[in-house]
């Protein structure tokens, strides 16, 4: 699980161009949107692409991703349960 969490963090950093940020600077439980990492609606759509591209998970809309994208822990949990690749 620890490994998956770190992989996801790096994938988020790369895909969202979080310049000069390292995986250990992202708190596993901190909210990704608003406070915390401060991601926005375009980033949410980009996270949907990560899930599809890296783990074969297809979310239909950002609304569906609302619970999944709460924190890195939530994403890792969801990926572990639903991944197809």
């Amino acid at each position, binding site marked *: 699980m620890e490994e998956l969490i770190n992989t996801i963090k790096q994938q988020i950093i790369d895909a*969202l*161009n979080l310049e000069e940020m390292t995986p250990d600077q992202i708190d596993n439980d901190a909210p990704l949107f608003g406070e915390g990492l*401060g991601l*926005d*609606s*375009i*980033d949410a*759509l*980009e996270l949907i*692409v990560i899930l599809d591209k890296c783990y074969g998970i297809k979310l239909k809309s950002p609304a569906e991703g609302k619970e999944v994208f709460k924190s890195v822990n939530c994403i890792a949990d969801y990926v572990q349960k639903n991944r197809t690749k």
Partner: protein
Amino acid sequence: MTKIVATNITSPLGLTTEENYAAVKRGETCLKSVEGCLGVPGCVCVGIFPDEQRRALKLDGYSWYESLVIHSVKEALSHTAVDYASPRTIFILGTSTAGIDELGDVPEKDGDFRSPGLAAKKVADRLGIVTVPITVSNACISGGTAQLLADRLISSGLYDVAVVCGADVLSAFVLAGFNAFKAMSPTECKPFDIERMGLNIGECAATVVLTKNDDNNKGDWFIIDGCLNNDAYHVSAPIPSGDGVYRTITNILTPELKESLACVTAHGTATMFNDQMESKAIENAGLGDIYTTAYKSHFGHTFGASGIVEPIITMCSLDEGIILPVRGFDEIGVSGRIKICNSIESTDKSAFIKIQSGFGGCNGSVIYSKNHGPIKTPVLLDYKTLNEIRITPDKVMFNHKSLSVKSSGPDLITELYKSFLSDGSRFYKMDLYSRLAYVATGLLCKDAIGDCSPEDISLFVFTQNGSILADRKHLSTFCTPEEYYPSPAIMINTLPNVVLGEIAVKNRIKGETTLIILPYRDDSIIDMVVKASVSDSRPSLVIYGWVDCDAEDSFDADLKMLRIK
């Protein structure tokens, strides 16, 4: 104020204004579900030309976009005797993408490759128009912006005739982008309806030919006035209050004009956010009691064409004394108190307002009427240059003094960002052209805006290659069906005006923000467009100039900030 002397609509519903209007009046749509459309996995609902019609319209040696523009303009010009080969005739295009997908087929640096500006030049040459064409790329409001620019150039006495064409075509490029944005409805769109699920993309070219008023009216339509602005909220979402659209309406709507309006022709894209926001703007502007109509369920969202095709349909309907209903609308699904036209309604009024909004935070309103209004007299501008900046790969000049920098090329722009701005913005998510424009305007505005109100600041950026680097990157994200992962963050940068939204959000710019593509840099055109626009909208501060980037190591930003007295 200018007179509309000829029109054309070239869409899957017909090849003339008359054919299109008749089809819309009959309640027809060109939207249909297509499996694997242009290589997009799954099923999409789009407004697309049937293959047979495509083959008939496509011209050898011209792209599909260019072919549609040529058809539309030629057909419109066949209805009028204006001298389009005169140096007093200007050709203005409005497009969000200009069929950029053909990039994929053409090797870089190939002589045949055409940016939107060069495509416009090629079309102008074919049509026999001799002046340098101007391409407005303000995303979904490009068509409205193009008409308003034409109105301003004619009102300023610079031209006698303007041929204005708005066009966008369906491409794998655009479909992939909007797919990634999750904004497309899987079924025919339902503007303003409670069950609306997003937009459909359509393809179309539409033309209006404008002249100055010559007192020889035979029931002609006029463009009375228009207003553009930015809501400085977010690059891909409109401000929920509808404040931007509201301000464009109230800025031009005198009590007399308000009294004369038969209806509001809305943008009505059928996305959750757009329709809700528009309903608030219409209600707050005091137009909730007259009918609101919209046509995207007939044509789809035709982007650059929408701001021209939609007013043409309303002109035709008001010529018959009727307002057409919104196809697909059943139950109101917006909170603004507005009156959606739900069946053919009769009216004795002959004026309307067209409203529109687009990516990059831009909004626009244009008022059309059969009764001509007062003629605007051009105002002589008195201005003072506050700041000037020039950024090239190895040098930065600020007010004619060289700034000491350590890096060069793309790193130079990042260095400038870190040294002077570092504002936690979306800088690192931008393509190079956007970063360049963002940093250059950021330096110009730093400590220079003072107490100037955001509504009184305007921004005009001129370019040749615009978002070409982002376009190429976007194409690489969906080259095969197995590796089909278009990125929303890259897609947003393929609209060259989106960076104006980033700049507006950062610097609180709520006046007009306009992006113009030229075939090549021509400072006399830049000065002419800015002066004609500024003498109409009268901002206090203007930021304008050239921003271009055609490779990682080849870019140029040359911008000025003026104070208008």
